[in-house]
């Protein structure tokens, strides 16, 4: 057993070793001979951009995927982990980025599922055990609450307790802070430190470099399926980490075009509906990008959908250059001049089972340019459109006749962008437009959005990533529990904006 790098570390033998792990999927080599070592009593960060393979690697360790090559050793012995059950038996637990909780069940039922302790359930007894465990590590939960009533932070606690209930020593957390408010993140870090003191090992998968530098003992960087470096917070910096992740220096500046900002294009007043929107008021002017910042779940999705006509409203007005949008159909709203980049590109953006050229015309199939009066599609024209879009936006594909499902996430997003921008909409709604994309694709999307601004169009940017908000916005507003809680200029400090995201600020114009 090699003991690496004892300087500053605890020098104990590795608890688990991943040795030359390789994992393939159709079309992708996700992990390429990756080696990693985990020690007791540490927080080990695993970082890399999208597609780097960090989640995949941990899923191999957790038994969700079988490795195509390499070995895993736990406490020195080589093991075969064929399923999560095996992993748990070896003391390895994982909390996924998307929680796997059974909503109608209680906290206790969720925690004991699979580990019930006998054919007949004794919920009271189990509830007591859960409460004890939670106390031990300082988690605040109500064992008999239904999961569907819990907040995101509380759900995460349940997920962690699930693992601890099974006595895991290695706890893998996949992007744990992606859905937490800054305060909840603080709580989480407190819990993680307690766990570390108790001798547990935490694997912290994240892309948020600040947090990684704050909490980790050791950091392993993956890029395109390979390990490109291992370091400690004391020996590195955010810039160096970023460079390792992407492979080139990433001091990344986007020039915001200087554009005279004109009259308001979009006016929203007191928008409310379905419990999620509680009186949203905002304006976007021509040549302006308005960034709506906020932790997911505060009404972002509902706001975007309301503006494009996918949602019924209970109150409020929406006006686009004087024309009322509220109550109109999606088709009408699009024709008035609204483009929509949905946050769910599969559920609202593309028809995956249709070809690229068919997807190119979605929303415009009624145009006289693309179909005759009697409803016959003008396929040649549509294919010309598709070819043009694909070329212009560099959508990488063998042909336009393949299904949209074969495109990568980035290329799918580019196709959607191309399609929506083709109509030169007066207002572009972009909801989480770069989620799941790598640096190249992100640069591209941001550039296109800035070009809309340069062309004097209005852009409503809804994003949970503050980096993105800052990079693109001319003005920032924060959305919390369905209302706008603050307005800031891009010069404002992130802490201020963070407060707005938590609802602590009331309409202060920066």
């Amino acid at each position, binding site marked *: 057993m090699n003991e690496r790098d004892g300087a500053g570390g605890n020098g104990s033998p590795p608890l688990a070793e991943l040795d030359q792990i390789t994992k393939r*999927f*159709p*079309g*992708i080599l996700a992990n390429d001979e990756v080696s990693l070592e985990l020690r007791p009593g540490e927080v080990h960060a695993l970082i890399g*951009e*999208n*597609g780097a393979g*960090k989640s*995949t690697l941990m899923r191999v360790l957790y038994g*969700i995927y079988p490795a195509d090559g390499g070995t895993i050793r736990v406490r020195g012995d080589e093991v075969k982990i064929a399923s999560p059950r095996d992993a748990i038996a070896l003391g390895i637990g994982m909390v*996924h*980025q*998307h929680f*796997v909780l059974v909503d109608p069940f209680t906290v206790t039922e969720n925690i004991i599922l699979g580990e019930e302790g006998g054919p007949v359930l004794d919920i009271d007894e189990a509830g007591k055990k859960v409460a004890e465990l939670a106390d031990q590590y300082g988690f605040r939960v109500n064992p008999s609450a239904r999961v569907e009533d819990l907040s995101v932070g509380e759900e995460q606690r349940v997920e962690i307790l699930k693992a601890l209930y099974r006595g895991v020593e290695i706890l893998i957390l996949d*992007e744990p802070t*992606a859905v937490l408010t800054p305060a909840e993140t603080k709580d989480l870090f407190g819990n993680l430190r307690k766990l570390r003191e108790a001798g547990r090992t935490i694997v912290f998968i994240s*892309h948020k*470099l*600040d947090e990684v530098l704050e909490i980790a003992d050791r950091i392993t960087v993956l890029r395109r399926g390979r390990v490109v470096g291992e370091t400690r917070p004391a020996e590195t910096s955010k810039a160096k980490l*970023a460079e390792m*992740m*992407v492979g080139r220096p990433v001091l*990344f500046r*986007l020039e915001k075009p200087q554009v005279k900002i004109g009259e308001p294009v979009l006016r929203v007043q007191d928008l409310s509906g379905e419990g999620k929107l509680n009186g949203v008021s905002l304006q976007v002017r021509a040549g302006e990008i308005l960034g709506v910042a906020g932790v997911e779940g505060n009404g972002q999705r509902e706001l975007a959908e309301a503006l*494009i006509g996918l949602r019924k409203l209970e109150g409020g007005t929406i006006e686009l250059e004087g024309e009322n949008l509220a109550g109109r*159909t*999606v088709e009408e709203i*699009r024709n008035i001049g609204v483009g929509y980049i949905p946050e769910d590109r599969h*559920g*609202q953006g*593309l*028809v995956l*089972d*249709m070809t690229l050229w068919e997807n190119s015309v*979605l929303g415009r199939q*009624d145009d006289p340019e693309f*179909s005759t009066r009697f409803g*016959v*599609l003008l*396929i040649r024209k549509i294919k010309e459109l598709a070819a043009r879009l694909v070329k212009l936006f*560099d959508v*990488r*594909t*063998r042909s*336009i006749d*393949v299904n949209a499902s*074969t495109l990568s*996430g*980035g*290329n*799918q997003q580019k196709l959607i962008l191309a399609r929506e921008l083709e109509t030169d909409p007066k207002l572009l709604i972009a909801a989480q437009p770069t*989620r*799941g994309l790598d640096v190249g694709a*992100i640069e591209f999307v941001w*550039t296109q959005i800035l070009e809309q601004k340069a062309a004097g169009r209005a852009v409503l940017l809804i994003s949970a*990533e503050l*980096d993105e908000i*800052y*990079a693109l916005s001319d003005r920032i507003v924060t959305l919390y529990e369905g209302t706008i809680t603050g307005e800031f200029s891009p010069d404002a400090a*992130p802490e201020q904006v963070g407060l707005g995201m938590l609802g602590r600020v009331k309409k202060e114009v920066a």
Partner: protein
Amino acid sequence: MSGGVAVTDPPVTARASWFEPLVGQLLALLASLAIAVVFGSALIVAYGESPIEVYSSILDASLGKADGIGYVLAIATPLIFSALAVAVCFKAGMFNIGVEGQYLVAMVTAAWAEIELGFLPGPILVPTVLIAAMLGGMVWAAIPAILKVKTGAHEVVTTIMLNGIAVSLLAWAINFPLKFTDAPPGQNVDLRTDPFPEQGLVGDLGKMFGITPGAHLSWLLFLAIGAAGIVWFLIRRTRLGYDARAVGTSPGSAKAGGVSIGATQLKLFLISGALAGLVGMQQILADRGHLPQNYIVALGFTGIAVAFLGQNNAIGIVFAAILWGILSRGEVALQIQSEVPREFIIILQGILILSVVITYQIAKRRLAARQLQRAGEAGALEDSAGPGDAGSPPGSEPEPEGSKAFQPADEREG
């Protein structure tokens, strides 16, 4: 602008795009035929017969003589309409299990038209009756469609209930308004409607080919094939077909693209009902000349089987219907020449449907994996996130890992 890998050549409209899925489907079909034949052989052997003899006697009865072919095509004709009706709805993501009831109602409306409008000359009467049939089917299909769009009631349950109601409706029609009461004295006549006027019947096609009139092969065959062509065109080449396919596979994206889901579903259900309406025309216009109490049932359900067999594809359905006809005709051969009971054919058909449905699923997944493989090799997947939750392959469920690996223009984060 992209700053990434060099752009690949301008996209080519590859021949392979529709070719491959077609090959895949054909292979799946052949595989299921093979499976059915193998299981069937086992059963035949259990009855002490030779599989080769049995299968060849089936084929002989169906294809050996012109008469056989006539029977096969006559059986296929209503099945084509029925399967098309099912497939049209399926494309839009709905299950029309109500073809059964829709054609019963259509037979009632057609019979009514024949009797009440029987004074019209032939060339006008026949199309009128066919339209009456289609309207009958459409009305009966409109009920579950509207219920689905307005209340969300799942069409599977409502259409089947309506099938039951249709049976009673037809029984009532034969017993009361359309009852045949003019039997010559002394003659005992089964419960049925008046006989239809001569000019209202559809002529026999078989005599042109030397096929016995007993097969009742009629011009409706051409109408069925024509309908298949129209359905193909509708689904693949029109806006409505486009909207239907979008709604059927990704309703959320269709809606966000401005397609009205309810309107599309309704339109397609009505078209389905119209097609269903024609299912019963073969028996009452070409075969019997009236609507009898013992009309042929189960054409709606068989149509579902044929639709699956034909992969819900208009062209495939025509061939599937003919295949079904071949098997059904084979029952006769078994009855005459073999120890194996005629119900063997039903088992064969059952195994065939089962294996088609399963092999099709397998083929679809293999194809998707191959498409991904090729896309990956072309370097088009380089920026994919790894697989999303619990094992879905890249390209189908992206894991939203934010990746903001760089700094904004000004150093802000503390």
